[in-house]
């Protein structure tokens, strides 16, 4: 049987409907990212010397990239083990949906709101900066590379976080454990932000291209890798496959 976009779409559609009716998830999607932009926004509206403004802006914008990493962790962590606990996984596995189709549908359902919220927050911040921040900060924020970095890295980082979360969810025995472990996906992103903040790594176009390429390759490969981790028998019976 061939890969079916229809089946992926059916899973995606179902996941979206469930998110809309789950207040906890809606709250996570809306409230959690706001917590991640409080510090960057407050930094951006502080008066800073022109020499420091660029560094300050760079750090703040990097911190905003953590939001699309943290936010999908909750959604992705629930993806598999949550359905297993709810008792809805087995009926789905009795259908022709393949592991790849099922996981892609779930990943897309977590990806779309994460990226939309990430882009939305960035748009709000840059417009707010344009209206009310110092001219040095405005000049530092409204640079093409900043826009490009957000446009490029937000979806790549969100996808990374989602695949890590789903991978953990396929092997975890409990939703809470899966969601907490899923936040570990943010460690590489936080590490990079820290290295750039402390000037260990100098942000540049070259570095951005290298990182984006690596992330893109990893994200595409992760789909296949996570599908291999998806063990039907173990998920249904709770036992390790022989």
């Amino acid at each position, binding site marked *: 049987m061939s890969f079916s976009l229809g089946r992926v779409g059916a899973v995606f*559609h*179902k996941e979206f409907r469930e998110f809309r009716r789950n207040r906890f998830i809606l709250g996570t999607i809306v409230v959690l990212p706001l917590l991640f932009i409080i510090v960057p926004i407050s930094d951006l509206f502080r008066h800073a010397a022109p020499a420091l403004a660029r560094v300050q802006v760079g750090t703040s914008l990097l911190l905003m990239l953590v939001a699309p990493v943290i936010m999908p962790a909750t959604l992705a962590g629930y993806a598999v083990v949550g359905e297993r606990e709810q008792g809805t996984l087995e*009926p789905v596995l009795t259908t022709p949906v393949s592991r790849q189709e099922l996981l892609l549908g779930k990943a897309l359902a977590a990806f779309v709101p994460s990226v939309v919220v990430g882009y939305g927050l960035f748009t709000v911040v840059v417009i707010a900066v344009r209206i009310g921040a110092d001219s040095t900060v405005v000049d530092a924020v409204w*640079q093409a590379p900043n826009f490009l970095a957000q*446009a490029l890295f937000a979806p790549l980082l969100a996808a990374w976080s989602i695949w890590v979360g789903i991978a953990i969810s396929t092997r975890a025995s409990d939703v809470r454990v899966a969601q907490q472990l899923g936040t570990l996906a943010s460690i590489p992103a936080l590490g990079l932000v820290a290295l750039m903040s402390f000037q260990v790594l100098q942000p540049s176009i070259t570095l951005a291209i290298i990182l984006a390429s690596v992330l893109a390759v990893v994200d595409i490969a992760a789909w296949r890798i996570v599908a291999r981790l998806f063990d039907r028998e173990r998920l249904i019976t709770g036992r390790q496959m022989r």
Partner: protein
Amino acid sequence: MNAGLSGATVVDESMSRRPWFVRRAIGFGWRPVTWQAWVITAVAAVIVVFAAATARIAKAPAMIAVVAAVLALYSITAAALSRSVAPAEPSLTPPPPVDPVPRQPAVPSVRRPEPVSDATRAPALAVEHLTKRFGQRVAFEDVSFSVAAGEVFGFLGPNGAGKTTTVRTLGTLLTPSAGTATVVGLELTERNGQEIRQRISIMPESPGLYLRLSVRENLELFAGLFNVTNARTRIGEALDAVNMAARADDICANLSKGLRQRVGLARALLNDPDILFLDEPTSGLDPVATREVHDLIVGLRSRGVTVFLTTHRLEEAERLCDRVAILNTTLRMLGRPDELRAQLFSRSLVVITAAPLAEPGHTFDEVGGVQSWQLDDTGRYVLTVDDAKAVAPPLTRALVAAGADVQAVYETQHTLEDVYMELISDDVEARVR
């Protein structure tokens, strides 16, 4: 419940679900139709605007390549998710030959009847020495049986006997440890798993509905997973079949256990399966709903659907099943209910007299074909005989000749429950592992 299903009607199978994009009638490109398509269009537009702004502000011609790439990807996506809304051309190929008794769809008016051969056609299920172990523990072992197409096959056994594990194995959810099987004519292998699951349907004991979604939304998901054409019509028919059409928009969390069971049954009918695995389908149902499910199963059988039924209700198995298998880790018996009774229990005659016989041993020993006799607590004589119909007349004459006032002479019928209790003597599930 609509157990008296109407006959099949032909539906144009070229009509599909609503496309996300449609090709523009004038000009080039695709127009978004659904909200999903608008989301994709909005995301693509944002990226294009960003890239174009960067190309302009930073004077970076390379960004133009990004714009072109995004536009190309959007076009490919729109083309993949679009379909022309022109009606399909009429088919020029001749229809397949149809035998006199075609199998009709489980839920009517969606599929053309498939050609069906006579009784010599391949079995729906053929299992050979199938075994499943979980480490040291044996779930079931060396199980062999076959199920004919269109048969209602009962699978009985105590808790922990391996019934559900057998269903999961045949449904490709678990990998057998040993043995082979063919399901709907396909060998039970991982490679065939997707194809097999497309042609069967499994209703687990607990329906596993998404409680935040409505009944209709739950069925829409599974219609999508089975790539069911004309999903809306099919869902309506499946809900009609289980008498849930009026509750289609109710959230499943608000349904009782019995109603959720019905929704699970409707879900199992969506893909018009060749084999329907039902695991305790009447669990939690009241007697009226139970009778409706029974009528539905009878209706499915008349349409040639193979039903594999696991149940604890022995009267249900006796009423519905053509054959039953009794499993207790290994297969204990297999056959028609009356065959199992005949195999396991000798024939018995019961004699009721107005007063106890003076010399019952002498009277009964003189009648040929009587193996043994006993007097039960109610004063009836229970005789074990070779052939009840042959022995009854001479026995009656002997009793009259002995001066007995005969009130009744009749054959006793052992039930399937008697067979089951005779075979299953231990509590498998409570056994120390």
